[in-house]
């Protein structure tokens, strides 16, 4: 198996738009107004509409499945949302191999805003095929 601790996952840069947030709201069925209604977002002390945490999780999920391909199976995927992100700004998804034990591999993944702040951090565990 050709995976070593410290290997970096090919980064994935997303360019979320308000349109995408509406599309995601419909696809997930989460119509909480903070994701598409600027006035509402301001009324709850947000700087404007923000990305769904689960959309950022989906971006990081893609980072992992793009890297993994058919070489193994995703077993767990965990994300914590540490900050809000706004549409109209690139969202950079990155990751690296944190641990390898036989066929079990743990990945550290995170999403960065334009300033390099990690607004989403997470872990994925995968089982590689022999």
């Amino acid at each position, binding site marked *: 198996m050709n995976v070593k601790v410290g290997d970096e996952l090919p980064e994935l840069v997303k360019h979320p738009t308000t349109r995408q947030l509406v599309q995601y709201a419909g*696809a997930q069925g989460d119509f909480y107004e903070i994701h598409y209604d600027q006035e509402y977002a301001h009324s709850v002390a947000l700087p404007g509409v923000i990305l*769904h*945490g689960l959309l950022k999780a*989906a*971006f990081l*999920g893609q980072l992992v*499945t793009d890297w993994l391909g058919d070489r193994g199976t*995703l077993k*767990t995927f*965990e994300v914590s949302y540490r900050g809000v992100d706004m549409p109209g700004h690139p969202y950079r998804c990155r990751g690296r191999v944190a641990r390898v034990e036989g066929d079990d591999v743990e990945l550290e993944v995170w999403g960065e805003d334009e300033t390099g702040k990690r607004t989403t951090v997470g872990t994925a565990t995968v089982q590689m095929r022999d």
Partner: protein
Amino acid sequence: MSNQEEPSLSGLPAATAPVIDRLKSRIGVDGPSVTATVEAGHLKRFAEAIGDRNPRWAREVPPTFLVALAPISVHVAEAEEYGKGWLNGGNRFEYVAPVTVGDHVTATGRIADVYEKPGSTGALLFIIFETDYVNQRGELVARLRGTMIRR
């Protein structure tokens, strides 16, 4: 606010017991199950919405799709008496078996924990939800744990 006489483990009428006690009384109690079919069209719209063009998502579900399959009780109405907005704190998915187009998946959710924590701009209410997903053959396919925060 509703004035219904809901029973509450704290012994207080539901409408006057602090919301945190009412939520705590539901820890570990399964909510109503929801069954949904994984439809190819829904899967396609979801993959488009997240901007993931991987062709495998024509048949298989991507890692976070299950949250879109059945409404999970993340927005517990009564918790909205606390604070003024929701924040998603985090999600943890555990994958046990593959889910593909045509599967009938039953989601059963419950509150796993409720607690208050001080935040930088006042107290925050944390609600931990768990959802189990079981397929048409009765096999557990995935588990989800989510942290929702009222601020």
